[in-house]
């Protein structure tokens, strides 16, 4: 019985808690966090159950208020959406566990409001992923974006401005999207994704559809932060508080990527956008631009969160490249990287948060080898995440790159292949720079004395911050070794005809 309601239940749990937290929080402030955790735990468990159920039994469709599509709004819980929902909710669970201490310290008096908005954000994300209606997608894009702007704005001094910039860029993007689906509605008379996919072959030769496609790609590109629509990302990730960046960085851009995949592959169709039109190649080229741009800019950064932000631009580029290739291996690479990068970035932002918790900053120029002694587990997790980002087997990051490599070879796109390979090397530069600083005495120091002048004691962060970090880091090893298990499920997520 519960299965049939899962598509609606999962986002609604978050919505309910978003409304409940302020009410109960006014009564007792300390209830905000436990409520948020309970809601996330429930949704995450349902997501696990839902994913397995869908893989075994097929797609679940839910019609709100019983109205049949295309008149009513339909929620489609199929292998792809259930997978992305699982990733989002699981990562959120881990992030919220990690965030308890940072939120208590950074946002002491705003906790109730903060957690309520986080729940709203998750409502938006889950809704975006599960919905089968184009306009409903817009609604939830706006919900999640507005929640996101608020969560970012409560950060450091420059945060409100960064959030404002994101707001402007994001709203423009959302407007493009609205215009795009407006054109689609005009041409087809429906807003339901499956319905539109059926009608598409009849209307696809019209220039209106082409314009709609471009508008939607640009709009979702903003949400996804594909180069050159990424401008909002670096400042937002850097100045947001620890808990926000840990939450938004791993999953925020991924829902945008999912929306792009859903609309391009399942509504327009891979043949249309990549074979009949050069849109696939365009996306891939811009993605490659982002990969190189992000990697190079990351090398230039002196602050860890900013470096990770530019690194994210590059990593999103990989997913964009997979989408642009529009072949099976590209699709697998994109979806797998959606998962892998969520884990990797979450780990890395946790580490930035851990360091800020202990030293007050995450300035790379201040890293030195005392960090190795003071925060051994945090730095060990950093090493694992860094090696995975560079793409060293058998860690997770290697495999998403492997599938993307196979995808580029399948289409004989040698430029994209070179970009993927070069970026691995660029990634190595900015990660190994930190590893060098942390694990080795700088040459200046080693000249002074052969032994340490005083004992540097271990001063690792508390368990509620350390354990999530370690869980995700170990998860990278597990995801790498078991990637075939995941990939076999991804085959079920592919659109018909791929």
């Amino acid at each position: 019985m519960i299965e049939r309601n899962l598509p609606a239940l999962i986002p609604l749990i978050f919505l309910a808690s978003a409304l409940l937290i302020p009410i109960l929080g006014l009564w007792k402030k300390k209830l905000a966090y436990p409520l948020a955790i309970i809601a996330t735990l429930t949704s995450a468990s349902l997501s696990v159950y839902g994913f397995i159920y869908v893989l075994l039994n097929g797609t679940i469709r839910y019609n709100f208020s019983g109205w049949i599509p295309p008149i009513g709004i339909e929620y489609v819980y199929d292998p792809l959406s259930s997978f992305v929902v699982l990733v989002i909710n699981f990562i959120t669970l881990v992030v919220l566990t990690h965030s308890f201490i940072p939120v208590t310290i950074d946002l002491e008096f705003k906790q109730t409001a903060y957690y309520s908005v986080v729940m709203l954000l998750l409502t938006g994300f889950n809704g975006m992923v599960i919905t089968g209606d184009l306009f409903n997608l817009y609604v939830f894009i706006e919900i999640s974006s507005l929640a996101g702007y608020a969560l970012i704005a409560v950060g450091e001094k420059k945060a409100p401005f960064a959030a404002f910039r994101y707001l402007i860029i994001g709203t423009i993007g959302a407007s493009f999207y609205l215009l795009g689906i407006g054109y689609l509605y005009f041409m087809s008379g429906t807003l339901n994704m499956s319905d539109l996919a059926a009608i598409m072959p009849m209307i696809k030769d019209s220039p209106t559809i082409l314009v709609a496609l471009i508008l939607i790609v640009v709009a979702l590109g903003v949400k996804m932060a594909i180069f050159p629509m990424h401008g909002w990302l670096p400042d937002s990730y850097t100045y947001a508080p620890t808990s926000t960046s840990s939450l938004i960085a791993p999953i925020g851009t991924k829902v945008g990527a999912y929306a792009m995949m859903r609309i391009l592959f399942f509504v327009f169709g891979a043949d249309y956008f990549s074979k009949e039109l050069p849109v696939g190649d365009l996306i891939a080229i811009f993605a490659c631009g982002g990969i190189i741009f992000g990697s190079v800019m990351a090398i230039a950064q002196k602050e860890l969160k900013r470096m990770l932000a530019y690194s994210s631009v590059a990593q999103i580029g990989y997913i964009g490249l997979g989408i642009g290739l529009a072949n099976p291996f590209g699709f697998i690479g994109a979806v797998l990287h959606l998962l892998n990068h969520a884990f990797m970035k979450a780990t890395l932002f946790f580490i930035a948060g851990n360091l800020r918790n202990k030293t007050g900053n995450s300035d790379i120029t201040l890293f030195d080898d005392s960090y190795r002694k003071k925060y051994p587990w945090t730095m060990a997790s950093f090493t694992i995440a860094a090696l995975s980002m560079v793409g060293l087997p058998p860690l997770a990051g290697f495999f998403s790159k492997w599938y993307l490599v196979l995808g580029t070879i399948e289409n004989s796109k040698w430029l994209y292949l070179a970009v993927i390979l070069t970026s691995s090397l660029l990634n190595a530069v900015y990660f190994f720079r930190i590893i060098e600083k942390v694990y080795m005495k700088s040459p200046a120091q080693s000249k002074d004395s052969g032994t340490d002048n005083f004992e540097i004691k271990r001063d690792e962060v508390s368990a509620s911050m350390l354990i999530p970090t370690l869980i995700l880091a170990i998860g990278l090893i597990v995801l790498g070794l078991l990637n075939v298990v995941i990939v076999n499920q991804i085959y079920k997520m592919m659109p018909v005809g791929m």
Partner: protein
Amino acid sequence: MEILQTYNSIVPFYAIIVSIIAVPLIIISGKFPNLREFWTILAALVKFGLVLSLLPGAMEGKAALYSLLEIAPGIELALKADQFGVFFALIASGLWIFTSFYSIGYVRGNDERKQTRYFASFSVCLSATIGIAFSANFLTFIVFYEILTIATYPLVIHKENKEAISAGRKYLLYTLSAGIILIAAAGLTYTYAGTLNFNPGGIFESIELSQGGATVLFLLFLTGVGVKAGIMPLHSWLPAAMAAPTPVSALLHAVAVVKSGVFGVVRIVGFIFGPEMMYNYGLNNILLAFAGVTIITASLLAFKQDNLKRRLAYSTIGHLSYIVLGVALLSPSGFAGGIFHIATHATMKITLFFCAGAIYVNLHKENISELNGIGKVMPWTMAAFTIGSLGLAGIPPINGFISKWFLGVGALQANMSIALIILVLSGLLNAGYFFPIIHRAFFREGKNLEGHKEASLLMVLPIVITAFLSLLFGLFPDLFFNFFTTAVNISNSVLGGFLR
């Protein structure tokens, strides 16, 4: 093409993980050096024993097969202990035993910092090396190859001075770039051939590739393994890596890492491309050219080096290309000679590096110009050095003569007298850059050598044993481990009935 008989056995897997298991034990015993070193020695002995147990089966043509898990659609992380794998694994694990004792003497004699990190990293490196030896397909090979790169990094930068850190950066730059290129090569091969499994005689049997496509693919592979194999111009990380402690240079940069590189070259030539494809597309000539240039240039550059370890590094670069030259000849004696050289060069070079380390720890001398008269003070060390040098120059009855002889015969079999000339010339150059060292040590008067005696037993004993092994295997090449017969068998299984 030969179909290899296989049987399922978990022994190859145990052989790899025995030193991984030792790592946490080493780390927790960090404050108790003797206990910590005990784990290293124990792991080395067990590993060698496990590998040795695979030898009889391998000699009969049966390979122990162990599949770990499917790591990519259609490709498994799998281990196959075939003759070539067991051959390499025996050399690496056997020499690790000696290096471990030597390491103890070295790090204690030098009072090195971060000894726990040193021994732990060493253990991981040996696991990775055995993993490379037993890889059943190219993707498994890449996994262990990259693990080896990362695991050797802490050892290269061990001293943490400016030279070491810069050497580490160069090392990573070269090896990571090569690893990335290998991934591209593997992806292309998988797309064209549908499999990455190593098969004696090649896997491209009925696939048609264009000349350009085959050449590009081969060059990608060659660049990928060529860095670790020290093929010029990808070699310059090796002299820089001499900033590492000498046992690291001895085992890793003369045996494990660089031999993994040439192991990769042989796997690519013999087990992926196969002799027919190499010959038909002219790829063996490309390989021959690179090898020939490397041998001569490295031998010439060795003359210029005053730092003893750097001279040995260039000598290593040259000798690695003996192996490459041998397989590039695609003739029975050449191929077998090249493979046998993996074993002979290992024992000889490790002896020389051990000697260099002993001289450094004992007398704090690094440069050849300072080595006058040390033969009187360290007679055993320098005697071993002499044996190693004679062997590398190709003088009987040291084992180096045998591999060189067969390489020469192989050159004639392939009608490539240029290769023969290169080999002879290189032998003369070897003599030219080694004999002055021996001359200085024994026939010149040294300064400030009073009161010094031979290095500690922990160092001298391994030196003498490896030198003695070089002599012993020169007289009885098949003693104990059938190295020579194995080399011939491998050559036959790869070349099959191939005739130029």
